[in-house]
């Protein structure tokens, strides 16, 4: 399948390197490969050398997974409150709003992909570790309900450390809340594609992230319920190499495919068009 094509290795001559200003270079945090910032950027922040997938923003996923100019944000007006009066939370969340943006830990909207209307949620890890509390649960639930109304497929890109402690059991209940709405989506015969990115753990993995009709994962993404640190503490030994990575989950039958970022849109569009019994994108063009 075309999604698994290897990216061509870029060549950079040493002469070229000398003539370029130092701030134009970028270094891979995984393999220390140095390349033009521009090359990382064109590869959607994937290392041109080793394929390491850097974390990108929710906004960026919306760009990648919808046709240019088609994405319209919805439910961007929902804000966190401090339902438990949890010490320090109001300040913490206010700071996250200031520093990261108003979408909270998930951006929700609708758009088209190869012309197919879809509803898209992309989690924002930079907002308190993509933690799920009332706002995330509410936005996902409303988006799924809107999908239902519009009979449009749903795509969710997850990136989350799990449920947010500061809203206590209300955060836990967002797992149930999103599940009841996704169950209705399933009843209505609408497809839901779940895309797992690094990391997808805790309450998000144990709810909508692993409830997709089709589950795709980015290479190297850590996916699991318990975090690696907690497991290590419990079993008192180091984790096996590659434990809880997307590739590990693929091998253990928990995801359908590991798809590089550059092919996510293709894969999603191809699947949706078949599930929805639409002609393939090439034919439609």
């Amino acid at each position: 399948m075309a999604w698994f094509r290897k990216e061509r290795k870029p060549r950079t001559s040493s002469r070229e390197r000398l003539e370029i200003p130092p701030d134009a270079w970028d270094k891979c945090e995984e393999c220390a490969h140095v390349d033009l910032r521009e090359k990382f950027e064109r590869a959607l922040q994937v290392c041109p050398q080793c394929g390491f997938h850097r974390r990108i923003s929710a906004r960026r996923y919306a760009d990648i997974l919808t046709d240019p100019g088609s994405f319209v944000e919805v439910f961007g007006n929902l804000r966190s409150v401090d339902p438990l009066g949890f010490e320090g939370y109001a300040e913490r969340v206010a700071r996250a709003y200031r520093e990261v943006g108003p979408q909270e830990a998930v951006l929700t909207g609708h758009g088209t992909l190869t012309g197919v209307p879809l509803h898209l949620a992309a989690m924002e890890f930079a907002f308190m570790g993509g933690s799920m509390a009332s706002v995330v649960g509410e936005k996902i639930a409303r988006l799924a309900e809107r999908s239902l109304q519009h009979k449009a497929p749903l795509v969710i890109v997850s990136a989350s450390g799990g449920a947010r402690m500061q809203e206590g059991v209300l955060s836990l209940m967002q797992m149930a809340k999103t599940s009841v709405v996704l169950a209705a989506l399933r009843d209505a015969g609408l497809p839901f594609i779940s895309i797992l990115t690094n990391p997808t753990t805790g309450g998000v993995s144990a709810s909508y992230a692993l409830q997709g009709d089709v589950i795709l994962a980015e290479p190297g993404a850590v996916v699991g319920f318990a975090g690696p640190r907690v497991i290590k503490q419990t079993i008192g030994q180091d984790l096996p190499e590659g434990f809880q990575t997307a590739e590990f989950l693929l091998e253990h039958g928990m995801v359908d495919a590991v798809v590089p970022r550059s092919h996510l849109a293709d894969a999603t569009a191809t699947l949706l068009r078949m599930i929805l019994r639409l002609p393939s994108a090439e034919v439609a063009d």
Partner: protein
Amino acid sequence: MAAAPYLDFEKPIAELQRQIDHLRELATDRQLDVEREIAPLERKLGELRHEIFGNLTPMQRVQVARHPRRPYTLDYLEACFTEFVELRGDRLYRDDPAIIGGWARLRGRPVMVIGQQKGRDTKENLKRNFGMPHPEGYRKALRLMRMAERFGAPSITLIDTPGAYPGLGAEERGQAEAIARNLLEMAAIRTILIAAVIGEGGSGGALALGLADRVLMLENAVYSVISPEGCAAILWKDASQKERAAEALKLTAQDLLRLQVIDEIVPEPPGGAHADPQQAARALGDALDHAIGSLEKLPPEKLKRQRAEKFRRMGKVAEA
């Protein structure tokens, strides 16, 4: 019960109880009538229980919920159900002894009962994995709920777990998927689901049995997104701040009723469920029976819709 463990704040109760027991023994040995002497002590004991258990801090409730003498699922199966027939295995990998389940009768009515089971001693705890399920446990639970649905019977889940098990096998076999699936499937079940938190409601491992039409909670049970110790360790890098975390997390039955996460509190006898397991079991049996009775007349579609609407409302947001 010999050498029964007591919590620190229970010491005055234990001390008085010991005095009363001692007096009784003495009286039996010497064939004396000491009831006149004992009566005021018994009264005092009742007052002491009320005083101490009426003013528990959230962390003390956590301790009561984890009390080594607290009745567990099997104790309730013994005390408020009859004819329990255990059904084992997930039909996929193995049987998880951390979750038990099977057919039983509640006041004569056939029901499916499913619950996490902790062990009383080290040996039993190794077998039960301290009540921490593996994915097989959730999958067995779902299999049994599905069976009950097929035969038109209510399912009752008894929740008592520190949480999902953070181990290699549990992750390898997809515990996130197992919990996620239970939530999705429980949302779709067309027969009555009643959940009761009887001890510890630990995070995802608890919720995996918790998406029910009615969620009951014993008076001293707790239900939380994370343990107070875990929360303190992450937020304040200091597990000893657990009192502070227990306070902040709002994990008591009283808090959760206020937050509309649970539907009803089942009263415990003075001194907690372990002080009088029979009375605790009677109260739980009454509450379960009543909850089923109140839902019995609903058509399946309406039952399912009401369940979904209840969870759909949970949480609190503002519109800017």
